């Protein structure tokens, strides 16, 4: 077990190292190189020459990479040259991460709560109306571009019917105290119920849009896994022994069927991070997704670099955790 965790950790560290090399190379392969990326509109030849000397861009590449790595480990990724002009790029991430975390957790919870029971019921009534309907629904769910779904939801529920707020994280009139910057949680902790309710209303539409793809994939994996497990001998044995159907359902079917679901949930974090860029842009939701969207538009490379690095870091850590959890549940994985 320990060996498995160590090996998996080592893999993650190697992936992060290669990723940092790639990001270093990425910043260097940009149009005009790092100087014009950092200077933006202030890119006069004199400024550029001064910055080249200042950044040591005439040094050999490995030396430059070493310097880049040292700075990065100290949290210095340069200064934004986009809408957050002058702000350290790392601060953009720190300030905006809680918003994306809150939105992603809400979207993932929504996907899990809907997809797993629906997947189970669909598998048990295979070929029935509910099964066919939800399979079609999940196939369409993958085919709809996330940002289009976001616009449709926003148009119908916010613009047309005015049921939910169209953008942002909190209404202007609300005066809320922030502790964790997860606005719903803050509202609950401080017992400012109206603030919590207001933040929750702002979360609903973006979370539905963001959860569409994870929902569809988790549903299909759950359904397939339950169908596989239902045919297993041990389920038939349990039934023959006369166990009650709820015991069979929980201890024999779901416990085994959820193993592949755990893995796929880890991978969905990637879909959530990518989808957040699109969804947060539509709903002007002030998280790292929106910062990335604006960064891509304005070519704000220092900010993009930080955000991509951390997005990948989160993704790697989550999947590392999933793999370890997976090995704890299922001993067969460790020996592979």
């Amino acid at each position: 077990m320990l060996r498995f965790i160590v090996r998996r950790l080592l893999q993650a560290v190697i992936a992060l190292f290669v990723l940092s090399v790639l990001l270093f190379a990425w910043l260097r392969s940009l149009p005009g190189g790092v100087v014009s990326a950092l200077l933006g509109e202030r890119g006069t030849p004199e400024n550029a020459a001064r910055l080249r000397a200042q950044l040591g861009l005439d040094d050999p590449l490995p030396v430059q990479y070493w310097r880049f790595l040292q700075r990065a480990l100290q949290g210095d990724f340069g200064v934004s040259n986009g809408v957050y002009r002058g702000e350290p790029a790392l601060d953009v991430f720190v300030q905006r991460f809680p918003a994306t975390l809150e939105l992603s957790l809400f979207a993932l919870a929504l996907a899990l709560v809907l997809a797993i029971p629906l997947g189970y019921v669909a598998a048990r009534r295979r070929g029935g109306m509910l099964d066919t309907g939800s399979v079609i629904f999940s196939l369409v769910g993958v085919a709809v571009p996330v940002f289009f779904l976001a616009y449709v939801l926003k148009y119908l529920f916010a613009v047309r019917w005015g049921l939910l707020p169209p953008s942002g994280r909190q209404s202007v009139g609300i005066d809320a105290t922030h502790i964790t910057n997860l606005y719903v949680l803050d509202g609950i902790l401080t017992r400012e119920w109206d603030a919590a309710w207001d933040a929750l209303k702002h979360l609903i539409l973006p979370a539905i849009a963001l959860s569409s793809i994870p929902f569809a994939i988790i549903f299909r994996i759950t359904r397939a896994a339950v169908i596989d497990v239902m045919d297993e001998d041990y389920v038939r044995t349990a039934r023959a022994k006369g166990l009650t159907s709820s015991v069979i359902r929980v201890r024999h079917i779901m416990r085994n069927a959820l193993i592949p679901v755990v893995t796929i949930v880890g991978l969905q974090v990637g879909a959530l991070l990518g989808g957040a860029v699109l969804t947060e842009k539509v709903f002007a939701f002030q998280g790292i997704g929106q910062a990335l969207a604006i960064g891509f538009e304005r070519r704000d490379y220092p900010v993009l670099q930080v955000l991509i690095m951390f997005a990948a870091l989160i993704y790697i850590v989550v999947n590392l955790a999933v793999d370890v959890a997976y090995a704890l549940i299922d001993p067969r994985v460790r020996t592979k």
Partner: protein
Amino acid sequence: MTDPTAETGTSPVSPEDPDHRSAFARMGDRRKRRIDELAEAGSLSDERGVSLWQSAWRRLRRDPVFLIGAVIILLFLIVALIAPWLAPHDPRARDLIGQVTPATPIPDPQPGYPLGGDNAGRDLLSRLIVGARQTLIVGVLATLGGLFGGLVLGTLAGGIGGWVDNIVMRVVDVMLSIPSLLMAFSIAAIFARPSQWTVILAIAIVQVPVFARLLRGSMISQRHSDHVLAARSLGVRAPAIVFRHMLPNSVGPVIVQGTLVLAVSIIDAAALSFLGLGNPDDSVPEWGQMLGRAQVFFNTYPHVAVYPALCIIVVALGFTLMGESLREALDPKSRR
């Protein structure tokens, strides 16, 4: 399986007893039917020999999911092929430019222009029809690009093995450790002047690790199979074994994956345009580009976005339906 009494004709049943005879005849029929069934399932081969593809085709042509997908894709291909003759107007002609004013940026539907125009006064219907071709080109080239990259990496890793395999798989792991949409955005952002080609390249690179893993897995599972051992013992050179004996057996999974990737490519192209990373030149319309650029009109003239979105959804669904039913038909586990 064979019944000697039935074969030799020395039946214990007297000719005067027609009832018994017919009972035996019925039994024989049943046995023949059973053999047919087994042959169809691929576990027993009759004189004609039933290959994987023949049995898959037998399943597919009765599978409504496949048929619906195939009809959608066939229609899409026909429209893409004959688009210039099908479109009522030149997609570049600004016929309705006179009706484009700051107050009414989108010309209304009118006789001869059933869907109205876009914000440059061009016929929306003609642009949708002609857009089918460019959408197909982007999807196919991105998928082929990803397949080619995956083929090179997967064949190196699976065919040679050893340290080559180790290095290639580390690269693939790193590529998979970045959320795929984020990676597509980052690659597209490298280019100072985005074009149709940078969009295709960005989507293709993201698909490389998926195809590489698939092909490597397929190669490794065949390395010790009988047909490869036989070829090796006959002195066939390694490259010939890989290309003539191993790759042909990977065609099935590659086609399944390719069909699914086509759907993803078309949707990703729309996401890139939505973030301003798409092709800025709209003289040749493409659905993703049309949808991405319609974002400014979504709350005022939703139809400008809804039409290209519907085209994308239907075609992506068509490819997904085909891919999923192909996967099931080619999977030996589900051939019952």
